[in-house]
């Protein structure tokens, strides 16, 4: 089974993608399955580190949080940019220690951080397990560390480890 369908979740989403693109018909369903299998094999050839999803029921929660945060930070950043000179903000780097090690989880974290306006993933130091973050509006540093660690990393560790 795992030989034929190495990445069930991924291949399922590929099938969904296929159906989204071609519209749902039985024929497309079959073709989509074939294509998904094929693509899955393609990924399998690369032998990536396989993520172990322990609690994927938490994914929607994560998604919700993230979307909400993104909206918030959108508003924040927009207001700052539009204020221009008048805004009293200080931007800067924060070097955050992470307990998260799983690359997939890290990647998700990276996606979250990056697609949230106002925070930018700058560097990850695997030897020291620290992530260097650039924050657009650095009101209080601890707040950011706390946000990352408790709001995102915690959930991600729940899901992946």
């Amino acid at each position, binding site marked *: 089974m795992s030989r034929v369908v190495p990445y069930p979740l991924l291949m399922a989403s590929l099938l969904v993608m296929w159906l989204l693109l071609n519209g749902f018909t039985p024929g497309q369903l079959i073709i989509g399955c074939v294509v998904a299998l094929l693509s899955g094999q393609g990924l399998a050839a690369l032998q990536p580190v396989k993520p172990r999803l322990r609690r994927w029921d938490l994914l929607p929660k994560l998604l919700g949080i993230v979307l909400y945060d993104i909206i918030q930070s*959108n508003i924040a*950043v927009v207001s700052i940019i539009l204020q221009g000179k008048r805004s009293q903000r200080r*931007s800067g780097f924060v*070097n955050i220690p992470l307990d998260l090690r799983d690359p997939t989880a890290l990647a998700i974290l*990276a996606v979250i951080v990056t*697609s949230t306006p106002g925070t930018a993933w700058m560097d990850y*130091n695997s030897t020291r397990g*620290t992530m260097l973050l650039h924050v657009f509006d650095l009101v209080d*540093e601890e707040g950011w560390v706390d946000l990352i660690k408790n709001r995102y990393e915690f959930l991600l560790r729940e899901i992946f480890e």
Partner: protein
Amino acid sequence: MSHAADLPVWAAIVVAAFLLLGAFLTLVGSFGFYRLQSFYDRIHAPTLGTSWGTASIVIASMVLFSVLQSRPVLHEILIGIFVTVTTPVTLMLLGRATLYRDRSEGSTEVPPMDAPVSGSSENTPTKD
């Protein structure tokens, strides 16, 4: 806009709203990208466009075509997903590259490779 004629007004309004929102966010993002002083600030701005800018325009498109063809047309959502997933790649690679370049030029703006963890990291405020 012949196709828009047989579009219910509510839908038109929804589409228009999302459209304008998205365009506005993207514009502001690009404007910030143009306006802001340091690169590390600039790198934030375009994400407005890649996050909710894209999202809302995609939504607008989905609503429009779903209503027009009176069936769920959702394939635009793929664009949203892929943009969200791929933008970080560029930004991470670029940010780190910038970091390297600034460090190798001995810039004081950026923390050294072995910067102290969390709270104690001295961060230079950039006024603008």
